[in-house]
């Protein structure tokens, strides 16, 4: 019987169970085995890049599990935006359509890691810093590497780190916004969705509310669990 949903992505691994209250654990992907200690494969529904590699009974892609996971919190989501470590997936639930951006790091979690690393910050601090910004500057480059050199030149011109972080969030959100079809109910999931700076920027660009479920980073693991339960019936 399926009891666990496990999502091992490019950066982090998550395990979720509902017994009946939601419990979860998160670790780095390279340590995924520690999450599964003592759990038999036939209790696991897996998702993420490593879905076929880890022990499992049922596996599904993140595109499917995201739909199941989001539905735990929101009825009839129209568009799901999943910002992962190495890619961003936008699923139009109404049309069964999706696009995956994995050719370029600029709209993925890797880009924010890269920027945080440059400033000697933790990626989890970016949101706090964003809120201290006085104003934003246009970052014109869409490539991570060129965007960084642009940021450096603004730093030289005397702009504050706070303003620059907020500007980077703005540029990041603009890139993601280009992938999103028109919809009323847009949901943002994935670890990056915990960064309020990104959600606020996206809301400003799209001029509408963006829904973020609690614990957005475990939605795919939760969805895997629900998907697994359904398939087992």
């Amino acid at each position, binding site marked *: 019987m399926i009891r666990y949903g496990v999502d091992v992505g490019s950066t982090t691994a998550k395990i979720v169970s509902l017994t009946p209250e939601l419990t979860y654990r998160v670790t780095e992907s390279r340590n995924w085995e520690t999450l599964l200690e003592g759990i038999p494969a036939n209790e696991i529904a897996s998702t993420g*890049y490593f879905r076929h590699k880890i022990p499992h009974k049922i596996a599904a892609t993140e595109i*499917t599990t995201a739909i199941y996971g989001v539905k735990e919190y929101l009825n009839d989501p129209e568009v799901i935006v999943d910002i992962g470590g190495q*890619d961003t997936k936008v699923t139009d639930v109404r049309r069964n359509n999706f696009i995956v951006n994995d050719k370029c790091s600029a709209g993925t979690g890797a880009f924010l890691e890269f920027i945080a690393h440059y400033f000697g910050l933790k990626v989890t601090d970016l949101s706090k810093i964003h809120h201290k910004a006085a104003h934003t500057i246009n970052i014109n480059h869409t490539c991570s590497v060129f965007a960084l050199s642009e940021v450096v030149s603004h730093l030289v011109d005397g702009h504050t780190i706070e303003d620059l972080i907020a500007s980077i969030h703005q540029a990041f959100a603009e890139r993601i916004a280009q992938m999103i079809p028109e919809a009323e109910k847009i949901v943002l999931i994935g670890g990056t969705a915990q960064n309020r700076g990104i959600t606020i920027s996206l809301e400003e660009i799209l001029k509408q509310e963006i829904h973020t479920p609690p614990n957005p980073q475990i939605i795919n693991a939760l969805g895997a669990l629900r998907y697994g339960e359904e398939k087992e019936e």
Partner: protein
Amino acid sequence: MKTLGITALVPPEIVFACGFKPFDLNNIVPTSTTRPKNKLCAWTAIWREQIMNGELDLDSLVVVAGGDCHNALVDGQRAAEKIPAFYLFYPFDGNKEYLKSQFERLSLFLGGITDPGIMKTVKSVKENLMKLDQLRSQGVISSELGFQYLISGCDLQGDPTAFKEELSRIPRERGGDLASMHRVALIGVPPIHHDFHREAERLGLHIVFDEMPFEFIRHTGKNINELAESYADYTFARDLKYRFDFLKEELGKRRIDAIIHCTQFACHHVLEDGMLREHLQCPTLTVHSDLPGPVPEQLKLRIEAFSELLWRK
């Protein structure tokens, strides 16, 4: 027998009748490890590179210029520095007289028709390929096995009689599991990944239509007049509405559940995607490929997700 390198759709009826053996240059690409310099599309750049390096044993080359692709035309002109080349132009408006004159010029380039009777043989091989295409659509033959032969409809592997023999030996053992899969049409260019059909089938998609190979097999004739009449409908050369209307009818006959639109990096077919979706109104996965080789992991994820979403319908 001299060998003629061909790209896209060059009537093998004429090539054989002029005493040449056709060799579709694109068929070497999916398994090629050549990494060409100065490339836009790998399909054309790889054969261009191999011709420039003298790796292919060809006597002449025919590049489909009008009605195919400008990348092919440029790479073809580069290759023409090494071997004699002819540029074949299909009419955008389907003008049969114009196409007949193009085919006559092609015959002259190849030294004239010496064996007109062979056209009848080629026609009968293509009729067998049409039957094979039907069997695949009925689930008697796997996507991969069918594709392997349909894609050879452009050059009949250089020998119509031997190819016909081979076709008669294809095992017809599939069934059952294919019937429970989604029925998918591959639109656009053939996938540049050599295991695409196998992977799609493994992930629950039975490909029952391949647009380009279907063009290879459905046009034929016993003389230049009949050939011009038939090949003038080559959909890739015509306006998009003509092509989409044709596809709509064909996809309807095959009871298609979904479309995979195959495009290449730096190919104009990418621009057609939105129009194709609007016109055909069918769940569509668009694939952008670049270099040949096995299906990359990122693409497997897309195919698997697409297959899962189709079950949600």
